[in-house]
């Protein structure tokens, strides 16, 4: 993926000063709300809602953090979110790689039609499933249980398609045939041939799915409650709706707690994520 990027990037025109000005502006607009989130989380609630709003960090960040952590249970929400996002990412990567491999390289009846079906399912809004699902988890007593948000997300059509697009180019049929000649059965081929070849794409897909699961809102908001066993997003929704009648500085501290872990991941692995988004799109 990377080499392709490099090869094509070298031919471009050099950027003029206006390009840098415009890009600088875009970066500023992209980053300012995040910076201001930090600013607001470091002031008192009264200061945040007093005009003119603060532009520089204040002294209250640690107090707000400990309040959000201890009084609003953002710590518990952080643990829940990490558990949910990790499980969803692991299982989606595993099942998407298997299905993507089958769609890319294994001949079977109905392959084309089934692949079309996979892609078509992406257009179905989640709104069409939440009412029955809510009835089911209510009957099972799963409201506020994490499995009710993990199970529906065990595998995603997007992931299947993503892995198929990658493997179709990256995995030579000869490798599979050679393994079959050696008498390897399919699971051995998956383990010794497919996984090693697919690893870069699996890593990228894992990160994308992790981000998505971390930020997922609609179904978790229905299946979990802010005062029960929430993920970060559900807890934030509770704060935003005024459930705890806390001040705005604490609300925005909650927002900061939910954002910073992902921003750290992006700062460390951003290049790979960018590569993944672009690679997945070019091939689709």
């Amino acid at each position, binding site marked *: 993926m990377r080499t392709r990027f490099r090869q094509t990037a*070298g031919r471009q025109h050099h950027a003029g000063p206006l390009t840098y000005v415009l890009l600088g502006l875009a970066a500023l607009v992209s980053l300012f709300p995040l910076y201001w989130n930090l600013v607001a989380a470091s002031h008192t609630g009264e200061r945040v809602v007093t005009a003119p709003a603060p532009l520089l960090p204040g002294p209250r960040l640690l107090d707000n953090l400990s309040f959000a952590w201890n009084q609003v249970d953002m710590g518990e929400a952080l643990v829940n979110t990490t558990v949910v996002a990790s499980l969803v990412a692991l299982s989606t990567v595993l099942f998407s790689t298997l*299905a993507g491999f089958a769609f890319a390289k294994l001949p079977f009846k109905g392959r084309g039609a089934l692949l079309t079906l996979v892609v078509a399912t992406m257009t179905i809004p989640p709104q069409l499933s939440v009412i029955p699902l809510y009835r089911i988890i209510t009957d099972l007593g799963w409201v506020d249980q994490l499995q009710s948000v993990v199970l529906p997300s065990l595998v995603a059509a997007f992931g299947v398609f993503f892995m198929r697009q990658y493997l179709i180019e990256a995995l030579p*049929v000869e490798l599979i045939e050679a393994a079959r000649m050696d008498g390897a*059965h399919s699971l051995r081929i998956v383990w010794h041939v497919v996984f090693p070849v697919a690893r870069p794409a699996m890593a990228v897909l894992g990160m994308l799915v992790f981000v998505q699961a971390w930020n997922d809102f609609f179904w978790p908001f229905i299946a979990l409650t802010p005062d029960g066993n929430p993920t970060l997003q559900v807890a934030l929704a509770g704060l*935003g709706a005024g459930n705890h009648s806390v001040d705005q500085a604490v609300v925005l501290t909650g927002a900061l707690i*939910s954002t910073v872990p992902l921003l750290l991941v992006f700062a460390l692995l951003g290049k790979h994520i960018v590569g993944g988004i*672009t690679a997945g799109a070019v091939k689709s």
Partner: protein
Amino acid sequence: MATSVRARNGGSPSPDPPPDAPSARSRRPGDRRPDSGASALRRRLYRWDLKATPYAFIAPFFLTFAAFGLFPLLYTGWLSLHRVELGGEPEWRGLENYTGLADSEFFRNALVNTFTIGVISTVPQLLMALGLAHLLNYRLRGRGFFRVAVLAPYATSIAAATLVFAQLFNTDYGLINSALGLVGFDPVDWESSKWPAQIAISVIVTWRWTGYNALIYLAAMQAVPQDLYEAAALDGASRWRQFLSVTIPSIRPTILFTIIVSTIGATQLFGEPMLYGGSVGISGGSGNQFQTLSLLMYEKGWVTGALGQASAIAWVMLLLLLVGGAQTLVSRANRKKQEG
């Protein structure tokens, strides 16, 4: 894509089992017979492996979809034909829930809001993403920084982004009104006025997704063959002309892809208006001024407890997408016919 699929079918392993390499090696000329039972079994296993494994590998997706996608979808359809209250027995209503929607002022309001917010959030977003991708396509110092910076909003959740923007857009003390004041504008009522509130919500959507779409466009732009530009330059086309006549047509499939994805997203819009509205979020503001179809569905289902009506709204959302999708396909087919 089509060609690669065909190539793969041609090159796939033949259905006949290959010689059993390991056992053949261990076999001595004299004892063929006792081994043949085992090798027949092996061959049968092998054939079974070839046949069944693909289905086993795609099974997790289809089982998950059947349980959490298809079954609920059909069940929602069934509910939409009934009068259902939380805890009560469903009662057959036919299409009354749907005809009721057609008469409902709230439904029409939500439908129009979903459409207007969808347009205000999608069109500028994709246009800006195109421009941004064009800029990022220059040879740049700090390329990595710019790319990650414009992608940072994508890492921010709907909830966090909306809570921050709700403060920035606050009518009394928000920074956006302060900034407008500096250039001489009167404060705008970003919460209870209809259009400003819809614009504010669209800004949140646009902020989160512009960079992401720009990176998708960028990747597509980098795959455009260089000789197309060279030919255009030889013909005396300016850089702007090249952008319009070479870049845009070359990445048209990608543009269509992002339009489809953003349209689906816009149809489902829920978290941004709900959290932007604070304590009156579910009704989409005090006068329903930014209530979307999703919010109305949630209000019907979880506040009013009219699950049949909520299900009908959900199905209308799917039908709208299907009609839109069919229309896109038809108009594309027509254009192809005209062109070729």
